[in-house]
């Protein structure tokens, strides 16, 4: 291996001389400790290296080993259930080896080298295969079949394929390619900054069910889509992301804890093995990979961590799974980029961020998508990406927020005014949007209920009317509003408090099925429709609001039984009838 020498150390940036022939984004081992770094700029024989570990004690003249390999991740059985640092070192192994504090220059393999995996071939020797074709499977966890794919860009004829138990480094098949025989192992590697290829991209048209009412009903994310959650501290970004990791109906979750709190990672690690997947009853950890580079860990590794996560997510997508990646928070990644850029004395753009910030953000989100994967079976995979953004002071004009909004299709606007009054999720219903809502209409109609899109529309409209009416009331007093308008205010309040408000820490409330969401919404609007009729029939508003069903509506979120929600609908009819006001059969949704 070639070797250069350090000529300068400035925080996480190291400059080395005598690096002729080094390539951009190659990995380097820096100093006597062999710290891991990546070449991010070349000037003549000088290599600028961002170092993923603390550089304290490093100095000029120490050696820099040029590996000639790009910074890559290892992909294969053993990923699921693992927690990695930003450059894919398993943190549990580091703990076992080095103790409670993370030290430097540690070498641990990303995937277990000794473990034996049972490989079942799905094709036989002699078969012609293309990149992405599935050679066989390994049952990685009781939840997930790990499909062993022909690595890109290999294609040719399988000259040998084995069955049995193998370590990830052992050959399980040999493919005769144009340039000779290539041994295939259970694991492959892929450079983290390079998008993994697919056959074709598709339009996302299936709902990613999250069980969070404000998301699924008002601002839905489609499988393979992109969303961002910007908001000031304490507004609920992390809880939203954790809720998605816990409850969304993706098959694989990759959670990137990027430059945030250690205790939040501890929370995931302690709760995921306990929590059960709602569909299969298996521990959530069996479908999850965590990448954790917390705020006190080396800053440069934060920059790499989201690519490490993304590449792992793409790999599972390539197997034909629906994958969701959460990055909390992309702002910390952008800040790491800014810090390195500053030390390289690049020309700063807005707020000191480098000029290429926006293109990096766009590139990142473009790796999401619903796709036809490589491989002859044309399987479909989806990778949904949800990024938290932490703008200074919650100010949405922040360059990271702005660049993100240009590319993502769903905007969940967190509002600290709502968070302060503990309305959670504090997603502002007037500012947020989903560009998938229209595409998903047929999905809602066929999978939930024919009238669901209409109910959704009506709910959104009521909430907007509420904002206008409240403004009027603020200016001239509540008296100026008609009875009808006051009922609208009451219904909007019910929508907010009884439907949108959802406590992530309440056993029952934390997740609502689509069916439940539909029934809840229908009951609230049913009450509203009958209320409007009752007003027309001259019944007092106070009498309408004092109906016993009103209290039941407030408790719907804690109601596990569908039958009771259906009953409530009939009870609403009954109580209004007792008021002497309505002929429920004729009611139509307006």
């Amino acid at each position, binding site marked *: 291996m070639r070797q250069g020498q350090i*000529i*300068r*150390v*400035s*925080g996480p940036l190291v*400059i080395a001389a005598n690096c002729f022939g080094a390539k951009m984004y190659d990995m380097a081992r820096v100093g006597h400790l062999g710290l891991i770094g990546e070449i991010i700029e070349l000037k003549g024989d000088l290599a600028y290296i961002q170092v993923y570990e603390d550089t*304290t*004690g490093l*100095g*000029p*003249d120490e050696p820099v080993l040029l590996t000639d390999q790009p910074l890559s991740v290892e992909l294969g059985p053993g990923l699921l259930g693992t*927690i990695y640092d930003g450059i894919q070192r398993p*943190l*549990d192994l580091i*703990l076992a080896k080095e*103790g*409670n*504090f*993370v030290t430097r220059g540690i070498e641990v393999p990303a995937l277990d080298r000794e473990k034996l995996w049972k490989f079942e071939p799905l094709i036989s020797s002699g078969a012609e295969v293309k990149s992405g074709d599935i050679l066989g499977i390994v049952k990685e966890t009781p939840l997930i079949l790990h499909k062993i794919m022909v690595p890109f860009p290999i294609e040719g004829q399988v000259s040998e394929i084995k069955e049995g138990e193998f370590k990830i480094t052992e050959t399980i098949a040999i493919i005769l390619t144009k340039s000779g025989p290539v041994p295939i192992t259970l694991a492959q590697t892929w450079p983290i900054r390079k998008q993994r290829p697919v056959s074709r991209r598709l339009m996302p048209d299936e709902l990613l069910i999250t069980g969070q009412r404000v998301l699924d009903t008002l601002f839905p994310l489609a499988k393979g889509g992109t969303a961002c959650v910007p908001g000031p*501290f*304490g507004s609920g970004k992390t809880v939203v992301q954790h809720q998605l990791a816990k409850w969304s109906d993706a098959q694989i979750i990759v959670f990137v*804890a990027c*430059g945030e*709190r*250690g*205790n939040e*990672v*501890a*929370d995931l*690690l*302690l709760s995921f093995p306990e929590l059960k997947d709602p569909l299969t009853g298996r521990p959530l950890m069996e479908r999850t990979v965590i990448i954790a580079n*917390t*705020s*006190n860990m080396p*800053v440069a590794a934060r920059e790499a961590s989201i690519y490490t996560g993304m590449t792992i997510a793409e790999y599972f997508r390539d197997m034909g799974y629906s994958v969701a990646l959460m990055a909390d928070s992309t702002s*910390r990644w952008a*800040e790491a980029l*800014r*810090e390195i850029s*500053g030390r390289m004395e690049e020309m*700063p753009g807005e*707020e*000191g961020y480098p000029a290429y910030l926006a293109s990096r953000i766009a590139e990142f989100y473009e790796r999401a998508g619903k796709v036809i994967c490589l491989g002859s079976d044309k399987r479909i995979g989806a990778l949904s990406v949800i990024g938290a953004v932490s703008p*200074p*002071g*919650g100010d949405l004009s922040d360059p990271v927020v702005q660049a993100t909004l240009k590319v993502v299709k769903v905007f969940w606007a967190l509002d600290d005014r709502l*968070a*302060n*009054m*503990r*309305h959670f999720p504090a997603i502002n219903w007037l500012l947020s949007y989903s560009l998938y809502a229209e595409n998903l209409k047929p999905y809602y109609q066929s999978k939930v209920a024919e009238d669901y899109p209409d109910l959704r529309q009506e709910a959104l409209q009521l909430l907007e009317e509420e904002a206008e009416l409240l403004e009027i009331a*603020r200016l*001239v*007093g*509540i*008296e100026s509003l008609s009875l009808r308008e006051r009922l609208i205010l009451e219904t909007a309040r019910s929508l907010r408090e*009884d439907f949108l408000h959802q*406590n992530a820490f309440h056993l029952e409330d934390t997740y609502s099925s689509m069916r439940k969401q539909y029934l809840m919404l229908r009951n609230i609007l049913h009450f509203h429709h009958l209320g409007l009729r009752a007003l027309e029939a001259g019944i007092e508003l106070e009498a309408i609001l004092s109906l016993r069903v*009103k209290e039941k509506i407030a408790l719907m979120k*804690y109601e596990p039984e569908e039958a009771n929600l259906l009953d409530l609908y009939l009870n609403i009819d009954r109580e209004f009838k007792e008021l002497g006001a309505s002929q429920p059969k004729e009611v139509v949704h307006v």
Partner: protein
Amino acid sequence: MYKDYLTVSNIVGPLLIVEKIEKVKYAELVEIETGDGQRRRGRVLDVSTERAIVQVFEGTAGLDVVKTRVRFLGRSERLGVSEDIIGRILDGSGRPKDGGPEIIAEKWLDINGSPINPCARDYPSEFIQTGFSAIDGMNPLVRGQKLPIFSGSGLPHARIAAQIARQAKVLGKAEKFAVVFGAMGITFEEANFFIEDFRRTGALERAVLFLNLANEPPIERISTPRLALTCAEYLAFDLDMHVLVILMDMTFYAEALREISAARKEIPGRRGYPGYLYTDLATMYERAGRIKGKKGSITLIPILTMPEDDKTHPIADLTGYITEGQIILSRELHRRGIYPPIDVLPSLSRLKDKGIGQEKTREDHADVLNQLFACYARGKEARELALILGEAALSDLDRLYLKFADLFENNFVRQGEFEDRSVEKTLDLGWKLLRLLPRRELKRIRPEFLDKYYQA
């Protein structure tokens, strides 16, 4: 043994540029000798084959480029610790300030520490009763949490912090307990207030103080909180103690960091603070916590004064992004004579959920807390409306909410400086207020708790 360099070429603000150096390492400790034999200390911020940039802790006043001698010590800054450190008052660099002897070190610790492996963390879940209703009831603190106080100049943050140090206890437990106090740039009077309070209550015997006062070198403040946290780690993870760390005032710390950044001509971030302020603060705040298999813990209360009471100021903003919540003081409540002037709505404890409830505090705690938040928020809205339109324009219900908000501030938040309320008492007070409102308004409380507590 060490080579002395007389090759200082430039002095810029708190920085020295030293030329023609050999074998200097990034971040190593530096000893500087002035022409008249005075010793100062510093740290390497940037090193290349030709020169090193050195930050001088005591400042560069009086240094020159001719006679200044520089010596590179080949190690980073360390703190010598042993059990004898307990009960001592040290300066901002860790030297005795109480007239006592040097501490004979049992071991030397790098003051920068190392990141706790996230896998090693134990999730904090033991409720600490501070005796403040506004904290225990609304934004409860747990052992191992980092919960800052966002204050403003002239607000009683010091009194509140001292009261927490005095009253904090974990229910039903008597364990080894210590306070570590790190002062950065505060006045003699403020520091003395703590010392006297600790002395009176006997806490001084279980305390370690690191004091860098307003008239002491600003650049030294970069080390002070790190020394305090290093000491806390030793007490918590070597000696099994539960340690409460109070750091005051983080604003002066950040200003010192800004000064260095400006001298290096770095591209400034918001309001002139360096772009790496977030990371820099995080490497300190994240040293709080619990570790699996260790008995001790570090609970951290950093205090900062927000310039112009602005919570979006970078120091408060970045702190809030790192810590596990924040306690925010309000000038308005203070003006109205309410102590503690804690503004509960924007305050937050992120770790409360696993610290409260049955067997920890009381079964109804979470629901009562959520309900009090919702009602107080609505009451404050009603108050605003009444300001614009007059109270008469409010609906009957809104008038009730308004009354609720007034009583909440006057009876629940307000309490005496020596009043130590139990969490039971706090929750009972909460129910007393909630009874002002009709039952159907209390949607955040489970029916079974309403049945049990609402009537009472």
